[in-house]
């Protein structure tokens, strides 16, 4: 079979017509879509200070832990700072706050992906 034969066969695909109710079906879906309120955007501006504070605290803790594991003595003025940070962490149940934030972020990403696909 030559290239011309292939071109001729594949170019001559029979055409189909959309069924008579197709436009109505599409417009019904579109009208339904139009009545749905737009999704509420994630309040990044409000969440940003909290996220930054958590990230900073985590970074400080990681640095302290690394230093501690390396058996290096901490500077004396940092010990009270670390203690107060840990106290604050416990008082505000920061672990749960961090977990909740991570969970919210993951569910937001998932719902955006499901709702929008690749568009």
């Amino acid at each position: 079979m030559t290239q011309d034969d292939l071109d001729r066969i594949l170019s001559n695909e029979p055409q189909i017509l959309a069924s008579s109710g197709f436009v109505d079906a599409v417009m019904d879906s579109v009208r339904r879509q139009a009545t749905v309120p737009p999704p509420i955007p994630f309040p990044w501006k409000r969440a940003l200070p909290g996220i930054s504070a958590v990230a900073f605290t985590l970074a400080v803790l990681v640095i302290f832990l690394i230093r501690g594991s390396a058996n290096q003595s901490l500077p004396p003025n940092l010990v009270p700072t670390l203690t107060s940070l840990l106290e604050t962490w416990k008082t505000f149940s920061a672990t749960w706050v961090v977990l909740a934030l991570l969970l919210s972020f993951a569910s937001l990403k998932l719902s955006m992906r499901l709702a929008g696909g690749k568009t």
Partner: protein
Amino acid sequence: MSAAEDQAAVEKVLAGDTSAFEGLVRRWQGPLVNLAYRFCRERSRAEEMAQEVFLRAYRSLAGWRRESAFSTWLFALATNLYCSELRRIPLRTVALDDLAEPPDPRPPDGGLEDQSRDRAVRRAVYALPPKYREVLLLFYFHEMDVPSAARSLGLPEGTVKARLSRGRELLRSKLANAHMGRLVRKEIL
């Protein structure tokens, strides 16, 4: 409806006139349903896929940048959805001969062998790896226009040309193997 009319309809929809979208659906329903049909070979599924494209187009209409024609954007959206849809739920595994085909415009007398050969060619296209199959389907849908196929697929023209060449090569080799197989079977019988 021209490209300018498409744009005017889009502006109306964006301004809140949902009914203006109907003109776009009427204009593009034929091409979108036919393109979907080439991907899935099932009329009802083709209509469902085309409907989903229109719905997505409506939802993301504000995202259409006027650098390209509305149709280019719409076909890219459709191609993206059809490719992912077909990868998600592949073609049914029944032989394509068993699927309902639209009526063939050729006269019934003397065309049986041609029809059988045409079906074999189409079947061979669907047996190709997706990246070659998609390029071949788009290339012939756009009347053998490489730039249009490339725009719909969101790929560089060079990539489309390379895949087209490799796809045709694979297609010819599959058809030659099938032909040889038939000859051997005839000889055995």
